[in-house]
């Protein structure tokens, strides 16, 4: 590209290269859109119900998977997401329940999950603890602490859904994207924010460098340890939002209510190949399978035992992976302790 090229051609060529780079993803998106239109024409009510639920179910997974993604991109494995979800759901619920303030509840959830992230960074950097062990410590601690301090029969105010004006009235797309609880929107916004931050900003470049090649980053003056502390704390806050997303519609906390979602989020992160857009797609896919099985079961379309419906999301996820044969390459420095020269 020469400097004298007119702006119009330039943007057109940018668009071309964008299309070329993302051909598969765009083709997939096209198929999904066509399928949605066909399904909507076939049965509008059902399709709308399933798709709205898809997005709702995906939200906590998106946030939790982004938490894992930011951690691993910075070079630290986080298998404590399950614990972070549980701790933040619990603390958010307790604070919300006693104070009556949803804002305070969210602050508490962010604080506790962020702190767990800081803990993970600290154990890795200062104590040189194995990161799998550190994550497991968070998980077990979360199960114990949230059950120990559990108070039965409490409720908190449910977080109301926010309809985005006329947008929410658009058929299919409205209920799907513009008629949700605030934390569902937060999940969708987080995908865009993390994507842009990771690939378009100085922070993102440094983060990726620290995850791939820390000694190179160190050489050019990036404070690796400070960045890891910061990123793991911020990532924890994403999981904190995920924990709030778990309790936003029901307004209750149950023991062990994260129910493996933190681990499913790890799967979502791997399927999404450590990319925010990939995470979005994988979480939506999983959410869709879940929504579909719930709707089929609810409507009793087929005379099949509910347990078989319950298996659908998990079997399909494995099948999709086995057929697509996706292999994942994690950031190169993940899990390794960095020795400062």
């Amino acid at each position: 590209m020469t400097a004298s090229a007119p702006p119009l051609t330039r943007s057109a060529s940018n668009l071309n290269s964008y299309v070329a780079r993302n051909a598969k993803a765009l083709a997939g998106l096209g198929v999904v859109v066509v399928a949605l239109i066909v399904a909507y024409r076939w049965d509008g009510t059902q399709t709308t119900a399933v798709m709205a639920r898809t997005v709702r179910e995906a939200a906590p997974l998106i946030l939790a998977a982004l938490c894992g993604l930011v951690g691993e991109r910075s070079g630290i494995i986080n298998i404590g997401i399950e614990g972070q979800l549980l701790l933040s759901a619990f603390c958010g619920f307790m604070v919300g329940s006693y104070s009556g303030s949803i804002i305070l509840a969210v602050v508490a959830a962010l604080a506790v999950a962020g702190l767990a992230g800081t803990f993970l960074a600290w154990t890795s950097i200062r104590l040189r603890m194995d990161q799998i062990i550190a994550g497991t410590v968070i998980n077990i601690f979360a199960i114990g602490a949230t059950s120990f301090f559990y108070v039965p029969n409490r409720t908190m105010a449910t977080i109301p859904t926010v309809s985005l004006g006329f947008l929410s009235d658009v058929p299919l797309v409205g209920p799907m994207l513009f008629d949700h609880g605030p934390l569902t929107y937060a999940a969708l916004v987080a995908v865009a924010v993390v994507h842009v931050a990771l690939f378009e900003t100085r922070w993102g470049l440094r983060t990726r460098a620290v995850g791939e090649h820390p000694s190179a980053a160190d050489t050019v003056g990036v404070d690796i340890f400070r960045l890891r502390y910061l990123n793991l704390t911020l990532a924890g806050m994403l999981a904190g939002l995920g924990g709030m997303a778990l309790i936003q519609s029901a307004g209750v906390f149950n023991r062990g209510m994260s129910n493996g979602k933190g681990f499913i989020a790890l799967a979502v992160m791997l399927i999404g190949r450590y990319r925010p857009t990939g995470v979005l797609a994988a979480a939506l896919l999983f959410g869709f399978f879940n929504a579909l099985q719930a709707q089929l079961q609810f409507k009793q379309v087929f005379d099949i035992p509910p347990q078989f419906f319950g298996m659908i999301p998990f079997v399909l996820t494995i099948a999709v992976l086995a057929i697509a044969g996706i292999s994942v390459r994690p950031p190169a420095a993940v899990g390794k302790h960095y020795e400062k020269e």
Partner: protein
Amino acid sequence: MTVPNWRMVVMPLLAVAFGLIVGAVLIVVSGDNPLVAYRAMLEGSLGGSDAIGRTLEKATPLVLGGLAVAFAFKAGLFNIGGQGQLLLGAAFSAWVGFNFDLPAVIHIPAALIVGGLAAAILGGLAGLLKATRGVHEVISTIMLNFVAANFTEWMVSRDGPWKDPEGGAIARTPLVQDSADLPRIAGLPTGFLVAVLAAVSIWWLVNRSTLGFEVKTVGSNPKAAAYAGISVTRIIVITMGISAFLAGLGGAIQTLGVNGRFEPGFQTGLGFDGITIALLARTNALAVIPAALLIGAMDAGSTLMQARTNVEPEVINVIQAMILFFVAAPSVVRWILQLSEAEDVDTGVDLATGWGTT
């Protein structure tokens, strides 16, 4: 290494002590006396032969669950499907237990082995998916946990083939025949002896056999292993199969020795506990036994503790988390006790780098 031997023993004990101190703080916060609570826990786990029997019973699936995770780690695989594998093992051993009429010498081993094999198929499937299709074992074993939970629940549900006809609305299998009942040998639960035998076998397998050597080679460097003529696919499938067999055996022993039948969703924490124990034992098969005994004793004692003091039994999870933390962070223990820096104990565990090797 110039690590004095006494530290290898003393550091874990200090970790347990510090874990108990953190637990004591929680107990005080909730308005109870930690000394009374811990005394009850000790009595409930070690005070008399009944209590000791309970501890051994609790420790049995923990030994096997810990072995399952520890063995898979040797090949660089992270099996977090212990829960699903345990459920399959439990359900299938119950089926052999109630459905067949055999002499005990055949019935018991048959039920245990069928339970273990059912789980091994599930684990082997995860291994096969990994080796041939590149599906990460963390993903597949998590997903298969949910599949196994749903499947076993259906088998004993209203329309399921293994439903107890006398159970009414309760989803469960019939009781296993007397001939499939695991007896006690000299007051010890047979299941625990089986678990110890499994631990010794796995230790031998890992450290003394060709297969073990191949497993460890694949774990440390799959490319080098392939170059040396080891079939990485075969090793991954076998490792996941053996790992799952162990978890399934844990479920089978729990069914035949303790519960007497299969009910859905029991032992829901085993997947986590297996990871904890494998890590506490630093993936050494023999060290899994004391680690499981420790957690099992806490489990067994927590009931009496709750009865005497109203302390929620889940406090033991917090204590376990702290023990794991202190075991993995000897520098914190040294700092608290102001011990000398020079002689550091290498934890000898490097699990995190095993993550994501495909």
